[in-house]
């Protein structure tokens, strides 16, 4: 029997989150620009991974959401109503994610839902959104099936996403890889939707950009892998020149540390990690992060060099005493997107908010972005870069940033199938 996290633990997380949310509520709300006279708080249910070896992610998401709540409430809330947040642990499990969404809407009375780290959970929760009839803004789960199939092809219009999809991991990565002196690629990636779909896209697009590449092998590691030695040993036996990986969180930290022991960074010419610039990985590896590793994320704190990004970084550091990770930015953006859409729609009715979100332009920390009408996907560019140890920062940072335009790497409607 695997130990299961029981109701008590969720209750604990939930009450502590409510306590945090309560503390953040300013006693007197500033005058709001738009007053909807709702006479109730706007309740937003947030879920993310809050426990286990990947729990650092959810924690960064929570920090971003709480910061946004504080700022929005200080500005008079959304349409004159303060925001109330409730956090639940998604546990990266489909049944738990669906249960959380139902709880939020049916029991707690959520007006909106945000969050979700796992691609599979995002798809499953997306499926029930028509019956719950609330707007869901995904802040991390990245599968292209969410925007391309669920929203564009099947018109599940309640679903939105403010983080860049696997186009970042599978296509922008191929744009970087095509200029690297590597012909033989192999992967060590997670054995679930995100890992498989990213590797498939990377292969299809890199083959298109550079037809003479070879893909020599793959090793997929289950969720909860504590040791990557066998995977590394297997893949290195295939003599690759480059390693592509979409491991994330603590698993990325373990994989890189062990790859170092296996001399992978000496034996290969390039190493790419799609989620390698997430703050938890940068901080977790610290001095152990080899220089030159190619890494990206769904937002990088050092990009772009804009007043809005600087303001977000300063506010985040002041509030939490750490640099923001990308789930912080995407959760922060999700709440501001809701504010803007609700005030534009002058209503919290789902249909009206959907219409207001479609085509909405946002000036977010990650840059200017527009939410595409066709597939409800926020379109903005995130750089890839190489790990560098800069003494000015307490953790490794990215150098040699490669920024592509969204035109270059975002797939567009009607979304031709990915061959390969």
């Amino acid at each position: 029997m695997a130990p299961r996290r029981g109701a008590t633990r969720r209750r604990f997380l939930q009450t502590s989150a409510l306590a945090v949310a309560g503390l953040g509520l300013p006693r007197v709300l500033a005058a709001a620009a738009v007053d909807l006279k709702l006479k109730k708080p706007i309740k937003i249910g947030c879920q993310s991974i809050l426990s286990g070896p990947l729990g650092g992610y959810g924690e960064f998401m929570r920090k971003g959401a709480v910061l946004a709540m504080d700022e929005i409430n200080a500005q008079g809330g959304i349409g004159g109503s303060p925001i109330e947040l409730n956090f639940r642990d998604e546990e990266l499990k489909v049944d738990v994610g669906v249960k959380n969404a139902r709880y939020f809407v049916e029991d707690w009375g959520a007006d909106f839902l945000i969050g979700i780290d796992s691609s599979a959970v995002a798809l499953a929760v997306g499926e029930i959104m028509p019956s719950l009839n609330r707007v869901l803004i995904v802040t991390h789960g990245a599968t292209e099936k969410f925007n391309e199939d669920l929203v564009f092809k099947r018109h599940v219009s309640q679903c939105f996403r403010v983080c860049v999809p696997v186009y970042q991991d599978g296509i922008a990565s191929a744009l970087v890889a095509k200029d690297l002196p590597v012909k033989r690629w192999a992967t060590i990636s997670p054995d679930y939707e995100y890992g498989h779909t990213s590797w498939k896209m990377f292969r299809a697009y890199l083959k298109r950009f550079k037809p003479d590449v070879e893909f020599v092998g793959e090793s997929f590691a289950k969720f909860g892998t504590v040791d990557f030695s066998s995977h590394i040993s297997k893949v290195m036996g295939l003599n690759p020149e480059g390693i592509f990986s979409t491991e994330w969180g603590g698993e990325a930290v373990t994989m890189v540390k062990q790859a170092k022991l296996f001399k992978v960074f000496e034996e290969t010419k390039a190493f790419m990690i799609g989620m390698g610039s997430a703050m938890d990985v940068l901080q977790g590896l610290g001095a152990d992060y080899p220089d030159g590793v190619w890494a990206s994320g769904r937002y990088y704190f050092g990009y772009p060099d804009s007043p809005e990004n600087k303001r977000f970084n300063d506010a985040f550091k002041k509030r939490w005493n750490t640099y923001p990770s990308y789930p912080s930015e995407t959760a922060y953006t999700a709440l501001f997107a809701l504010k803007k859409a609700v005030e534009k729609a002058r209503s919290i009715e789902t249909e009206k908010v959907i219409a207001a979100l479609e085509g909405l332009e946002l000036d977010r920390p990650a840059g200017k972005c527009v939410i595409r009408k066709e597939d409800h996907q926020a379109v903005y560019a995130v750089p890839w870069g190489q790990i560098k140890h800069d003494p000015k920062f307490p953790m490794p940072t990215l150098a040699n940033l490669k920024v592509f335009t969204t035109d270059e790497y975002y797939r567009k409607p009607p979304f031709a199938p990915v061959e390969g």
Partner: protein
Amino acid sequence: MLFQGLVGLSEAMYLWLVAAGLSLIFGVMRVLNFAHGSLYMLGAYFAWVAFRISGSFWVALVVGPLLVAAAGWVLEFGFLRRVYSAPEAFQLLLTFAFVLILDDAVKLAFGPVYQSPPTPAALSGAVRIGRSILPTYHLFILAVGGLVGLGLWFLLEKTSFGLIVRATAADREMARALGVRSSRLFTGVFVLGAWLAGLGGALSMPVRAISPGMGEFIIIEAFVVVVLGGLGSLRGAFLGAVLIGLLHAYGLLFMPVFELALAYMAMAAVLIVRPWGLFGVREA
């Protein structure tokens, strides 16, 4: 090929250290300690703290497991002792509660971020044969796992403490009737089991990301190992861990699609043929 097996074996050694304590505790005390994976996690965290203070991996490797042994003493003396006569379900509830409490305790104390000190320079090298590479650290783990195995064998087979442990495991009532003070013995065994798990955790510190909840994955595999080898049998725990390690390493190589299922298939097969495990004792 050969190296892939050695890599699998080295992964098995962490599992062996956790499973050894789990099996020992069950064998003597008949308590299934769900919190054993959390003791592994504490080993990593305590070693990390010791490393931060001393700057030495070797000091951390000694101090970390000793601190876990002390925590084991608190757990046994302060809590478990009170539920020995209670139904098994209460013991499970108590140890499971400790999984949740310890996870959240380290989260409160250290935050949810991943910690990972550098691998000691002396163990950062690698052995090469042709294109195959085996890190020195993995050889070191193999050596430690083997030494602990020898040490446990000596302790159980050649000392009076071992004699009492074996006698109690074989027949608790008879041992008690002959004057074995089971309360002291139970504390000793639990502390030893905690030390073993702590050693596993301390060894993992420089090569695996340390995070709250890291014990939950190893405890599941450790249960598989212990069931495979036979509850209460150390030899079984060792061979069970080795079997799981090899199945994992070669499974990845030859049948990656089934690799996840292999360990459970092995467990199911053993349970069908020998429900008491490979080296377990058939309950009368």
